[in-house]
């Protein structure tokens, strides 16, 4: 966000003088405590301030200091200490893959994103991308582009008979503008990653997993998996395939061989993993959730929370064969010795519905013994008596 034109020129000049040593394109110049001056920018900052109040007071905000410190730490290690100090970070409990940055410097990260990335580097890739939007002042440019576009359309609709073609082409340009900004933010985020302690190949990894999950969701819903290289006219973002491809090419070119960093992602997520997995299971997306669980297990092995979540996933779809699988997953989780009481609850319900009444009731009794104050204790008790 903070690039006065002079600063940008200066940065370019310095960049060219040092070109022999460093072939990487320069980063935007950082300026602290930027205050907008134009009417448009001051207006959108004011609106962003109001929205930030709402975000700050939202009930879905995850306030856990440890998790916030972790995400902030990754952001700081990606974009640098000075830049990250200007960001207010908000973690919002929404089970979808998204993050955004408002024009005034508030970053909002959805928990579905934290669940999907598998390492600090992958998280850093996304946070760097979002910070790129902020630093390049994309919201302002987007606002102006939309205004120009709608102005042209308004005049065309009044003055020109059969102006539909003009309107379509103007709208098309507005979306193309948006895709260009996404690409620009992708490359800026990539620059941060390449300069950080994280391997820059993580940026492409993220998009490959996103595609994998989209395929799994489509197949699970009996649709067809589709990946296009070229985005449609009304796409706000480049296609996942295009992003994965150009980011992969950039990382091969950058050739940044780095020593492996200690990755604390799993440790930071440990406490929240069951909560975020539970949110994910409720999305009723069997294919996508199954892919996600397998993807997570690929990194950590089938841990207790992953097994419990997989049990819930199968039990909720609830075909007779699913109930058998669910019971097995719960039993595996219990076998690991650190399963929560809810594993016995899931096991009991799955067994009951598979007509294994005695075993099911025994598991439910164990659940009630382990967690007598459970909110559903009365209801579960009726299933035993």
């Amino acid at each position, binding site marked *: 966000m903070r690039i006065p034109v002079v600063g940008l020129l200066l940065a370019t000049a310095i960049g060219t003088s040092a070109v022999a040593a460093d072939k990487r394109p320069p980063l935007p110049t950082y300026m602290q405590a930027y205050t907008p001056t134009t*009417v*448009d920018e*001051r*207006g*959108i*900052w*004011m*609106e962003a301030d109001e929205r930030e*109040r*709402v975000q*700050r*007071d*939202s*009930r879905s905000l995850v306030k856990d200091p440890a998790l916030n410190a972790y995400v902030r730490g990754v952001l700081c290690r990606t974009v640098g200490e000075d830049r990250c100090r200007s960001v207010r970070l908000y973690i919002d409990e929404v089970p*979808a*893959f*998204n*993050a*955004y940055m408002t024009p005034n410097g508030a970053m909002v990260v959805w928990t579905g*994103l934290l669940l999907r990335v598998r390492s600090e580097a992958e998280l850093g890739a*996304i946070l760097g*991308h979002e910070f790129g939007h902020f630093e390049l002042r994309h919201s302002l440019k*987007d606002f102006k582009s*939309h*205004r120009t*576009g*709608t*102005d*042209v*359309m*308004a*005049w065309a*609709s*009044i*003055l020109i008979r059969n102006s539909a073609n003009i*309107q379509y082409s103007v*709208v098309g340009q*507005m979306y193309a503008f*948006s895709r260009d900004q996404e690409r620009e933010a992708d490359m800026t985020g990539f620059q941060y990653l390449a300069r950080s302690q994280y391997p820059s190949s993580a940026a492409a990894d993220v998009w490959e997993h996103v595609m994998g999950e989209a395929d799994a969701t489509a197949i699970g819903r009996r649709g067809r998996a589709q990946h296009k290289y070229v985005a449609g006219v*009304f796409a*706000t*973002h480049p296609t996942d395939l295009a992003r994965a491809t150009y980011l992969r090419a950039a990382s091969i070119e950058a050739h940044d061989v780095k020593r492996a960093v200690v990755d604390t992602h799993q440790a930071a997520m440990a406490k929240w993993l069951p909560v975020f997995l539970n949110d994910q299971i409720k999305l009723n997306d069997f294919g996508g959730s199954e892919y996600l669980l397998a993807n997570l297990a690929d990194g950590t092995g089938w841990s207790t929370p992953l097994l419990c979540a997989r049990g819930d996933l199968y039990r909720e779809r609830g075909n007779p064969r699913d109930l058998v699988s669910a019971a097995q997953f719960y039993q595996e989780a219990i076998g690991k010795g650190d399963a929560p009481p809810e594993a016995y609850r899931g096991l009991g319900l799955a067994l009951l519905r598979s007509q294994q009444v005695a075993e099911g009731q025994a598991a439910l009794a164990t659940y009630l013994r382990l967690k007598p104050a459970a909110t559903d204790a009365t209801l579960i008790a009726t299933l035993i008596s």
Partner: protein
Amino acid sequence: MIILCRATLVALMLAVTAIAPAYAQEKTGLKPGFVLAPGTARIVLMRPSIRVGAQSTGGMYEPNADWTDQAKENIATALAKAQTGLGNSVVGYVEPVGAGSAKVAEYQELFGAVASSVIEYQFFKGNRLPTKKRKDQFEWGLGPDVRTLPGLDKADYALFITTEDHFGSTGRKMLQVFAAMARVPITAGVHKGFAGLVDLRTGELVWLNADMQMGGDVRDAEGADKRVRQLLEGFPGKPIEAPIAAAPAIASAH
């Protein structure tokens, strides 16, 4: 944003071809039988929601920070002036920090949702809910828990005020002229506002005044006076409308 779409084509097209809806609506609702005797109640004014900006040629809202700041100042002054005419004391709400702030934010949102429902399903005659069809059926509320909001335990009523202005830009007004020649109705400017009074002991909405085409330019003091007068039109317990100039005299007489 990574995945979510920002604007749909439909929304864009709508912004351009917005046609002025006819507001054959009522503006004020009062709970049947409700009276507010002067000098008996302590009313807390919640943080007003005030947005002021311009409307671009294509109909887009362009938020303007200076105008909004001016409007906030002017409306606060106008409210202080109008208070003397309301018959009861109105004090500003001190927003809590920390845990309580989330609850206050939720109630602000809830009031907005209830007020929009009243406007849509009661004030607009053709759209009335079956339970709101008869004359004496003004029954709306935020629930009795509103009294548990921090800092409201000693108050009797909460007053909510919302205004939103999009002043038509020169381009929009020119477009309007040309559109009129082509017989396409296009509005320039949005000026809407509503004010509501909530009984803190029961959580009931006892009075709501809403207007989708308000007067008064909130960017100057005179206009803000007019806007506040319109917002508080029909305020319960208000003494017979006195000329504005006379109001300070009454205040000093006390």
